[in-house]
């Protein structure tokens, strides 16, 4: 059927405008699918290889101090493979030219300079000489942020002593693929560092000679994780173990897993929308094509082409369009995927990114697009192909029109004739009109999702830092300290207000469920740290009992009034029963809150505090930072303002990328839907419109009749788009909920208006293009041709 293939090619060329619009929509769907899935696969593969080659541990635990001999008892647990002990410490850094507080995690390197597990990948320079006490390898992100290179030095306050450290190399680690300070919301490369240093030097500084305070181990295949965790805790409890946990709960790995979950969700939502819209557009266009080719079909059948031949002919046309979109989409998807991968590499520090486009992803993309394209078109193709040839030679019956509802209820007399034509046209094909509206609405919805991320982040930050945590900085002490220590801080010049807090690591248990977190004790009547009830109203800390973040309540399955078992992982490690007296709202992290005195009583300790929240005059900020660095008692300082700023900075690029992609995609869908319906009504109605022109209607009036319909559909689509957009955002929020963070569903007026604007602009653009054709309508030619 070579001749028919020529027909195919030329038909396709003739409908190139419409085909192009559809191809763009398919391309968008395929490229988002490929982008999300390939990024996910690439990161997964890269992660797995990095974990394997650099021997990421399976089980982790921190403890207070245990003698090295304990290591053997752990090694003997059946299922345990390699065990490595370490000394890990959090230190303050003092960096010339960077006055803000910086903290770092100091990780020991064994005496032979070759860590067995969680091995750092040396990017530049070399590993430290384990017997030198002034050499460090620093995390690459930190080095980059400060433009450090080998040979540069800075000062660290190691167990109260200032120590000049020389950088000998930069490194990445499977343990710190994402470098977030514990408790922080995002990586802060400037203010948080990972440092590797010889075990000997750290051991000396922290009185850990022949002892360790951190343990990593790997398991042999088929080992039972939970059993082993319990056994390890049993052994290390008496050495101040903070509870062992598996990879699943290792923070860097957690962030990665959440990211994969998010990519997976996105790979489901966005491509589905595009491919659905593409199927609808194909349906409309193919419907129109077969109906204008009724007589050609009849002739072909009269010459002995079978129904199947004809069907295959049109299916080829569809497949051709789909294949172009598919091919382009895979190409663009790879390109986007690599771009997105680069963006992820900013957050997630891998030594390299192995781009992985699996054949299965291409397979899924092809299957889904071709499948839905056919699903959307086969019906009309088959119907057209199976008409007996004699029947097809008969013209289709004229479209049936009725009075519209607006006219029926008596508003007709307020309508001009052209307006009536518009309304009747819409009402004549309600399903098609509805699907067009739906298509445009989906475009609007996609745009809203991009605004949603910004709005949700703004809202979270606003709630967390404006309503809940109002301090300028929070200072933590190296160990629980008497409340008197506060006076030292209050006495600093520029400190205007100080409030104490107590933070205790715990394991909360209810029934068979448990969760490891900390309890924060805060003062009654404090002015800086507020708890928010479910309606985000500030509430006082509970007089008695404990309040939990609502999602923690869900995880543990507790409600107000239930008795919670609190295993304290500090000091004498008491286990206590505490009543839950309420649930509070908090978007980031999961915690319990108590009155500080009640917490002190629970711990059977005096009035110990873990740290202080401060309000300070910004004029004296540098001076205060300086003093805090020098105070041996102070373990670290977090400046809220910096934290927020950093959060936005790290997010900015990703947000921009998402907004950009969403805008382009929205434009494509809106343009595609509007352009296609416009072209089709133009082809269906050029006779009618030409006749009106002959009757003396002006171009403007004709355009009004023609574009008015599209305008009306577009306007109707926007509110529907808002509703669908909210729905999608809600779904995303639910899908992304985890103990790390809960995304609130908030959409700012700006997001709505931007979405509407993008839709209106792209719809108008396509309207203008079609109007250009309308203006050049050849009246004579149109009226002469038989429909």
């Amino acid at each position: 059927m070579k001749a028919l293939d020529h027909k195919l090619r030329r038909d396709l060329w003739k409908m190139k405008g419409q085909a192009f619009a559809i191809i763009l929509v398919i391309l968008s769907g395929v490229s988002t699918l490929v982008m999300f899935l390939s990024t996910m696969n690439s990161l997964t593969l890269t992660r797995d290889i990095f974990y394997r080659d650099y021997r990421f541990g399976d089980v982790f635990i921190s403890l207070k101090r245990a003698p090295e001999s304990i290591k053997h008892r752990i090694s003997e647990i059946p299922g345990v493979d390699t065990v490595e002990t370490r000394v890990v410490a959090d230190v303050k850094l003092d960096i010339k030219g960077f006055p803000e507080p910086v903290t770092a995690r100091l990780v020991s390197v064994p005496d032979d300079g070759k860590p067995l597990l969680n091995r750092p990948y040396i990017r530049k320079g070399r590993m430290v000489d384990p017997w030198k006490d002034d050499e460090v390898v620093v995390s690459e992100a930190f080095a980059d942020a400060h433009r450090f290179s080998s040979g540069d030095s800075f000062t660290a306050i190691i167990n109260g002593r200032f120590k000049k450290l020389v950088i000998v190399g930069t490194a990445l680690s499977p343990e710190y693929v994402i470098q977030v300070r514990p408790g922080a919301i995002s990586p802060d490369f400037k203010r948080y560092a990972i440092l590797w240093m010889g075990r000997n030097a750290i051991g000396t500084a922290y009185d850990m000679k022949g002892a360790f305070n951190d343990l990593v181990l790997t398991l042999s295949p088929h080992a039972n994780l939970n059993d082993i965790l319990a056994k390890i805790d049993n052994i290390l409890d008496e050495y101040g173990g903070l509870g062992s946990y598996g990879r699943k709960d290792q923070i860097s790995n957690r962030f990665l897993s959440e990211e994969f979950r998010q990519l997976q969700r996105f790979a489901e939502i966005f491509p589905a929308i595009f491919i659905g819209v593409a199927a609808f557009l194909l349906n409309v266009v193919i419907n129109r094509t077969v109906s204008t080719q009724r007589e050609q079909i009849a002739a072909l059948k009269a010459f002995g082409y079978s129904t199947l031949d004809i069907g295959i002919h049109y299916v080829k046309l569809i497949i051709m369009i789909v294949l172009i979109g598919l091919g382009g989409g895979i190409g663009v998807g790879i390109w986007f995927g690599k771009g997105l991968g680069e963006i992820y590499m900013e957050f997630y520090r891998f030594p390299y990114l192995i781009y992985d486009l699996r054949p299965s992803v291409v397979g899924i993309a092809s299957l889904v697009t071709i499948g839905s394209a056919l699903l959307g078109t086969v019906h009309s193709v088959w119907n057209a192909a199976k008409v007996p040839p004699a029947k097809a030679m008969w013209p289709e019956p004229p479209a049936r029109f009725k009075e519209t509802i607006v006219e029926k209820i008596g508003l007709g007399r307020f309508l001009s004739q052209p307006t009536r034509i518009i309304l009747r046209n819409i009402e004549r094909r309600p399903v098609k009109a509805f699907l067009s509206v739906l298509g445009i609405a989906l475009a609007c919805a996609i745009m809203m999702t991009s605004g949603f991320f910004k709005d949700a982040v703004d809202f979270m930050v606003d709630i967390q830092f404006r309503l809940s945590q109002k301090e300028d900085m929070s200072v933590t002490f190296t160990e629980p300290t008497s409340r008197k220590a506060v006076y030292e801080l209050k006495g600093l010049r520029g400190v205007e207000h100080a409030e104490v807090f107590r933070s205790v690591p715990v394991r909360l248990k209810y029934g068979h469920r448990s969760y490891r977190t900390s309890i924060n004790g805060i003062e009654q009547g404090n002015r800086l740290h507020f708890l928010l009830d479910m309606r985000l109203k500030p509430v006082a800390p509970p007089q008695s009992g404990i309040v939990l973040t609502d999602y923690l309540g869900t995880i543990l399955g507790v409600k107000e009034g239930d008795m919670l078992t609190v295993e304290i992982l500090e000091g004498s490690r008491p286990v206590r029963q505490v009543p839950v007296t309420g649930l509070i709202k908090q978007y980031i992290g999961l915690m319990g809150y108590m009155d500080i005195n009640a917490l002190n009583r629970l711990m059977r300790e005096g009035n110990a505090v873990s740290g202080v929240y401060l309000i300070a005059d910004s004029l004296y900020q540098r001076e205060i930072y300086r003093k805090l660095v020098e105070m041996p008692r102070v373990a670290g300082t977090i400046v809220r303002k910096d934290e927020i700023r950093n959060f936005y900075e790290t997010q900015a690029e990703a947000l921009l990328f998402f907004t950009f992609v969403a805008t382009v995609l929205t434009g494509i869908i809106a343009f595609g839907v509007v352009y296609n319906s416009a072209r089709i009504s133009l082809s269906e109605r050029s006779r009618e419109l030409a006749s009106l022109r002959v009757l003396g209607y002006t171009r403007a009036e004709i355009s009004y009749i023609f574009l008015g319909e599209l305008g009306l559909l577009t306007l109707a689509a926007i509110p529907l788009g808002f509703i669908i957009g909210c729905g999608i955002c809600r779904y995303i929020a639910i899908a992304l909920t985890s103990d790390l963070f809960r995304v609130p569903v908030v959409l700012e007026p700006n997001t709505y208006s931007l979405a509407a604007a993008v839709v209106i602009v792209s719809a108008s653009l396509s309207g203008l293009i079609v109007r250009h054709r309308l203006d050049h309508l050849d009246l004579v030619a149109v009226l002469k041709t038989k429909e």
Partner: protein
Amino acid sequence: MLNKKNIDKEAVQTSVSEETVFKVKRLKKVYEMGEVKVHALRGVDLELYSGEIIVLLGPSGSGKSTLLNILGGLDTATEGYVEYRGKDITKATEKELTDYRRYHVGFVFQFYNLIPSLTALENVSVVTEIAKNPMKPEDALSIVGLGERLGHFPSQLSGGEQQRIAIARAIAKNPEVLLCDEPTGALDSSTGIVVLEALERVNRELGTATIIITHNVDIAGMANRVIHLSNGLISEITKNPVRKPPRELHW
């Protein structure tokens, strides 16, 4: 003029063989348009011999196209039967009908029904590609005098030229019967004559049995037999002792 009762098989012209191509018996066709039933054919009996040219005359709506469509396997009968070379095509399956159209019948329509996106040559190839023993498309086009315009698209050709391509397309498969539904209906008379000449030439050179529908009485002169249809019934069949060459027709 002969009366219907006096149809005499022996009386066919010498160029026409005795071989029966179509035998139509009590053929009825009812179209149901919702509530209304349209009786397009009310009981037609007819025989067509190979090599013959038949002109079907009758007013608009008399059932000419319906009859032709059923003969050509484009439409199905409501009652009665149609035998093509001894085989009842009213009982044929969809597949058999398709094959019948593919290998045996050539169709020419009033509005040409060319594929606008194909050139003259390709429009003919569309048919030869699926036929069993076709001519070369170029040859079919030369027979209708269009050997020079192979690369033109229908929109670049006049109505008469388009219709001649349609004829080339219809004959290119070497069909046994050529069914033409008002082939000159959309053409002026001089162009019409060129088209009829093409049909006559095909009949003469290839011996293709040909039925030509027209409501133009003047065309009847080129036929062996003229069948008058009125209101779904054959009202009379006339026989021309000699066929007039188309160029001698005027209207």
